[in-house]
């Protein structure tokens, strides 16, 4: 009786192990397709040509300008090492602002300007009341420009962990 249960246990464990390996291999093989957006650095390293792609990064501080038609916005998307100018005509999400994460879908023009068909805002994992954010800003400890980094946390381990996350983005 015991041995049959044990055998079933091993069969289940082996099956799970095999399944997990298969899933891991499949996911790493399709890595390219699972990535939702590319960073401006990726764009430089692997030019997409005429393909429609998504780029993600932060809206660079002081880069947003409204065109004369009132509907077109030009801004810069940056990942701190590379920057891409983006042009978009349409209504922007409420969270779209300088220093915030953004994902834009469109094509890279021959002039190096990324013409976006759709712009989505990406928010980070920090949540706090406005007064706390203001206090941090006054104290000069507010650094939202590094994505993935907690803006009010000073522990060194947190910084280290987030340095790697930032690199990936």
């Amino acid at each position, binding site marked *: 009786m015991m041995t049959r249960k044990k055998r079933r246990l091993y069969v289940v464990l082996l099956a799970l192990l095999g399944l997990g390996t298969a899933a891991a291999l499949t996911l790493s093989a399709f890595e390219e397709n699972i990535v*939702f957006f*590319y960073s401006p650095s990726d764009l430089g390293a692997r030019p997409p040509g005429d393909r429609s792609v998504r780029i993600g990064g932060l809206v660079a501080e002081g880069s947003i300008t409204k065109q004369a038609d009132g509907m077109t916005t030009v801004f810069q998307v940056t990942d701190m090492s590379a920057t891409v100018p983006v042009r978009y005509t349409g209504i922007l999400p*409420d969270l779209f602002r300088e220093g915030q994460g953004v994902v834009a879908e469109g094509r890279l023009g021959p002039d190096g300007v990324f013409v976006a068909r759709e712009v989505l805002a990406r928010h980070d*994992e920090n949540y706090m*009341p406005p007064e706390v954010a203001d206090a941090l800003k006054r104290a000069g400890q507010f650094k939202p420009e590094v994505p993935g980094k*907690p*803006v009010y946390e000073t522990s060194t381990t947190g910084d280290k962990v987030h340095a790697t996350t930032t690199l990936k983005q």
Partner: protein
Amino acid sequence: MGHATYALAMHRFANPARFLRLAAVVQPWAAGIAVIGFVAGLYWALVASPPDYQQGDTVRIMYIHVPAAWMSLFVYSSMAVAAAVALIWRHPLAEVYARAAAPLGAGFTLVCLATGSLWGEPMWGTWWVWDARLTSVLILFFLYLGYMALVDAFDDPTRGNRAGCILLLVGAVNVPIIKFSVDWWNTLHQPASVFRMGGPTIHADMLWPLLALAIAFKAYFAAVVITRMRAELLARKVQALRLAQASQAAE
């Protein structure tokens, strides 16, 4: 604990009388904690907590969205463990649990997807995107539905339960994918805020409503899943009685 004692401990719960006695003790507590958790959590979430510095009042959606997301993963994981126990040790209560928990897990996943969509539209600017996090959670929802359809698709309930358990174990691969999708790939969805290295990145005023509602969701689940397990056990008894009556009538 040795193998033999462990197996023995497991089998003590095979007796529904023992389970029902335990359930009778646990259920009133779970229901009470759920009520308190919902009252306190909703007050904190909707009234007492501040709006977010970036997202304003939409941050209040988080207090529903995140506990629902946690529960969708927790319920599925517990069902997968139950499926393993059912397949390996043939424990009857494990199947009863998986069947009872599935609609609740599907409900939590539906709430997670719907509230996420309602949060995404004003903040991201879209109801839905096919990024790794959103897609893997949608797959989780279909796994719940698939399990519920599969266990009832066979004339022989034993075979239905067996097939369902195998599906649950296969689908368990999706659980770590959901959890780590935001770290492994670029996603529109932001990374984890609470269960992450370096501690939570949510201000304490916003952490309390989140934790209160998370406890309320879990207690709600415990209370309702016990009722569903009771109904399932009664249904099995009804089935057995009907069979007995049919054979009596044939005599």
